[in-house]
C-alpha cells in the first residue's frame, strides 16, 4: 500500500547510507531523539475509552489484559488441558454421530438413493435442504472476518477465528450433500472441466455448474484466509510449546514466522486484500445457490427476490450458529471470557435481529408478489405452504424466523445468555425448516396435478443429517482442543489500543522530533533522512 505521506525511505534502502559510520553528530542527534521519544509516550490509562463527551462503552476486551496474558490464556486452552469434562462428553457424542454418518453414507453407496425419501416429484428432499442450510451457516465466518475487517469493526477480532473455523466445517458438510445425492457419486468429478476422452464439457450455462465453482472457490478462499490469519498464532504456539514434539508440530504450521516488521507489513496488506476478495465472494456464493432455484421455472422458486433473500438468510443462520456454539464454549472455558465479552454477543444478537428482519421482508415480498403477480400457480404455492400438508413446517419457520427474533429488541434478551441461546437454536431450526419448505412445497405440488406427491424423510435421511451435525461438532471440538481459538495477534492489538496509547503517524513523529531537536543536529530533515 502506498503511504499518503512521504516516508523517509524515498531516498534509499541502503545504498546511499554507505558512509562507513554515521557521523558523530548524527549519532548524537539520533540518541537525543530516541530518548525524547521514549519520554513522549503518554501515561497508560486503564479506563475504558470512548468518544469524548459520551459515557464510556463496555470494553471489547476486559481490562487487566496484557500482551503476555493474551498469549497465556489463549495458548493455555490448548496446552493446559483444562477443557471441562462436559466438552469431552460432547465430543464423544458428536464422534459417535460421525460414525453414524459414515455408516449411513456407506449404506447409501451400497443401496443407492432409494433408501432416502426422495423420488418423483420431490427429487431434492433432504440433501438439498441440508446443502443450502449448511452453506448458509458457512457464511457467518467469512462475513465476520472479511466484511467486518473491511468496514473496520474492531469487535470482530475476538470471534473471527472461531467463526472462520465454523465456516470451513460447515462448508465441508455442505459440499458433501450434492455429491452423495448423485445416483452414481463416484462420477462426481464429471462436473469439473477437465480434458476427458468423451470430448465433453460441463454445462457452463447451468447454475448447478456455477455452484461447483462458487462453493469450491469459497471453501478454498476461506481456508487460505483462515490459515493466513492463524500463522502468527501458530508461531506463538511453537514458542510456548512445553515439549519439543509440540514445538515441531506447531513450528511446521507456523512456516518459520518470526514476527518481522517487514513481514507484518506485507501480511497486513495481503490479509486486507483477501478480506476484500472474500466480501463479494460471500455474496456471490449464496446468490448462486439461490439461482439453482430461481433459474428453474417452478412456481415458488422463479423469483428475483431469491438471491438477496438467501444471502440475508445465510448471514442470519450463520450468526445464530456462531452464538449457539460460542455461548456454551464461553461458559465452559473461562479463559475465553475476557476476550468474548457481553458486547460482542450484543453485536451478534443485533445482527441476527437485523438480518431476521430482512428475511421477514423476503417472506412478505414473496407472498405479496405471488398474489399481485396474478399467476395462479404461484399463488397456489403460497396458499399450499400456509394451509397445505406442510403447514406445520411453514408456521414453525414463521414463528422461529420472524416472531422469536423480536425478543432481541430488548436488552434483557441480548444479555441473558441462556435465553439468547434458546433464540439462536430456534433460528437454526427455523432456517432449516425454511429450506425444507422451499424445496419440498414447490416440488410436491407442481403444475400438473397428476404428478403430485408427498415427501417425508426416512430413517436414513435423518441419519445422514444427524451425522453431519456430529461431524461438525467433532471438527469444532478438535479445533478448540488443538488450535488457538482466538486470534492472539489481533487481541494484542486490542490490548495496545485499550491501553490508550495511540501511536502518532510517522511523519508527525519525525516532525515533532525535528522541532524538538533543532540544534542537536546540523542536518535538515531531508538531509538526515538521505
Amino acid at each position: 500500500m502506498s503511504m499518503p505521506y512521504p516516508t523517509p525511505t524515498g531516498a534509499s534502502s541502503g545504498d546511499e547510507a554507505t558512509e562507513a559510520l554515521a557521523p558523530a553528530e548524527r549519532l548524537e542527534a539520533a540518541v537525543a531523539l530516541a530518548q525524547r521519544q521514549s519520554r513522549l509516550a503518554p501515561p497508560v490509562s486503564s479506563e475504558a475509552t470512548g468518544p469524548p463527551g459520551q459515557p464510556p462503552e463496555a470494553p471489547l476486551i476486559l481490562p487487566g489484559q496484557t500482551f503476555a496474558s493474551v498469549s497465556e490464556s489463549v495458548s493455555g486452552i490448548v496446552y493446559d488441558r483444562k477443557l471441562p469434562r462436559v466438552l469431552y462428553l460432547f465430543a464423544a457424542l458428536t464422534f459417535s454421530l460421525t460414525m453414524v454418518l459414515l455408516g449411513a453414507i456407506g449404506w447409501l453407496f451400497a443401496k443407492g438413493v432409494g433408501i432416502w425419501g426422495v423420488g418423483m416429484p420431490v427429487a431434492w428432499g433432504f440433501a438439498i435442504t441440508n446443502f443450502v442450510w449448511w452453506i448458509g451457516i458457512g457464511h457467518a465466518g467469512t462475513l465476520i472476518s472479511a466484511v467486518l475487517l473491511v468496514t473496520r469493526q474492531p469487535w470482530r477480532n475476538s470471534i473471527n477465528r472461531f467463526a472462520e473455523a465454523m465456516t470451513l466445517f460447515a462448508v465441508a458438510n455442505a459440499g458433501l450433500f450434492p455429491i452423495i445425492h448423485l445416483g452414481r457419486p463416484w462420477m462426481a468429478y464429471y462436473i469439473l472441466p477437465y480434458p476427458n476422452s468423451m470430448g465433453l464439457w460441463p454445462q457452463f450455462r447451468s447454475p448447478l455448474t456455477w455452484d461447483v465453482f462458487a462453493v469450491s472457490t469459497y471453501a478454498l478462499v476461506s481456508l487460505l484466509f483462515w490459515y493466513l490469519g492463524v500463522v502468527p498464532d501458530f508461531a506463538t504456539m511453537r514458542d510456548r510449546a512445553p515439549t519439543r514434539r509440540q514445538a515441531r508440530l506447531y513450528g511446521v504450521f507456523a512456516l518459520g514466522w518470526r514476527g518481522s516488521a517487514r513481514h507484518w507489513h506485507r501480511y497486513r496488506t495481503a490479509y486486507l486484500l483477501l478480506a476484500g476478495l472474500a466480501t463479494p465472494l460471500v455474496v456471490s456464493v449464496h446468490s448462486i445457490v439461490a439461482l439453482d432455484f430461481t433459474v428453474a421455472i417452478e412456481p415458488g422458486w422463479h423469483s428475483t427476490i431469491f438471491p438477496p433473500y438467501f444471502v440475508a438468510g445465510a448471514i442470519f443462520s450463520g450468526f445464530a450458529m456462531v452464538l449457539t456454539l460460542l455461548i456454551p464454549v464461553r461458559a465452559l472455558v473461562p479463559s475465553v471470557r475476557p476476550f468474548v465479552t457481553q458486547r460482542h454477543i450484543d453485536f451478534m444478537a443485533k445482527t441476527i435481529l437485523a438480518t431476521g428482519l430482512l428475511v421477514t421482508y423476503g417472506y412478505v415480498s414473496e407472498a405479496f408478489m405471488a398474489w399481485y403477480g396474478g399467476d395462479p400457480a404461484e399463488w397456489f404455492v403460497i396458499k399450499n405452504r400456509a394451509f397445505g400438508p406442510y403447514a406445520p413446517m411453514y408456521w414453525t419457520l414463521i414463528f422461529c424466523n420472524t416472531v422469536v427474533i423480536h425478543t432481541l429488541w430488548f436488552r434483557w434478551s441480548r444479555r441473558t445468555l441462556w435465553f439468547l441461546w434458546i433464540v439462536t437454536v430456534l433460528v437454526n431450526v427455523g432456517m432449516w425448516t425454511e429450506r425444507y419448505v422451499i424445496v419440498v412445497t414447490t416440488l410436491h405440488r407442481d403444475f400438473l396435478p397428476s404428478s403430485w406427491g408427498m415427501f417425508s424423510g426416512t430413517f436414513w435421511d435423518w441419519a445422514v443429517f444427524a451425522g453431519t451435525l456430529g461431524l461438525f461438532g467433532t471438527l469444532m471440538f478438535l479445533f478448540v482442543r488443538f488450535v488457538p481459538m482466538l486470534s492472539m495477534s489481533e487481541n494484542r492489538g486490542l490490548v495496545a489500543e485499550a491501553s490508550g496509547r495511540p501511536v502518532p503517524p510517522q511523519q508527525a513523529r519525525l516532525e515533532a522530533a525535528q522541532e524538538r531537536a533543532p540544534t542537536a543536529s546540523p542536518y535538515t530533515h531531508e538531509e538526515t533522512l538521505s
Partner: protein
Amino acid sequence: MTTPLSPAQASATSPLHAPPLHAALWGVVAEFDTPEAVLAAADATFLAGYRALDAYSPYPVEGLAEALGVRGNRIPLITLLGGLVGGAAGYFMLWYATVVSYPLNVGGRPHNSWPAFIPITFETTILVAAFAAFLGVLWMNGLPQPYHPVFHAEAFRRASQDRFFLSVEAADPAFDRDATRAFLASLGARSVQEVQP
C-alpha cells in the same frame, strides 16, 4: 552500557578496527519491553544511518515497518495480476469450451453467451487472486523458512508473545560491533546481544 556514546568514542570505532570475529557475526539484536520503545528505537536507528534493520513484534505495530524504511509493497500488484489472469483464463475456458471445442446450437442462440459466463469468470478471478495474495505474501516474506539466525537470540521466543526486538545486521555498512551495541543499548533496550549466523 546505557550511556550514549560521546562523539569522540563514536568516531574512534571504525570498521578498520573491527574484531576478528566480525565475519562470524550475523548482527546485533536489542530487546524492548513496549511497542513505543521499539518504535522510537527504530526511528533513531534509521536516522543514525543504519539500513539493514528489522524489528520483531508479536502483533503488527502501527508504523514500525515504515520506521525501518519499508515503503509500500508488491502484494497488491501481485493480487491484481492474479485476478486478471484468473478472470481471463476462466473466461477463455468458457469461450473455448462453448465456441471452439464443443459448439452446440441451442435455438440459434449465440455460442459465446457471455451473461451466463459471468458467475464462473467471477469465481475464477477471486480464486486466482486469493491464491496470488496468499502465495505472494509467503514468497515475498521468504516463508516457509525454518531457520533464521535471529532465533538464536536469547528470549527471542517472546517476540511472538510480549517482547519487541530490533536487529541490525553485520552486513550493514554502518555496522560496527561495539558502537552499534552501545548505540542500541543507549536507546533503552532491555538487553543487547550478538547473534551468530
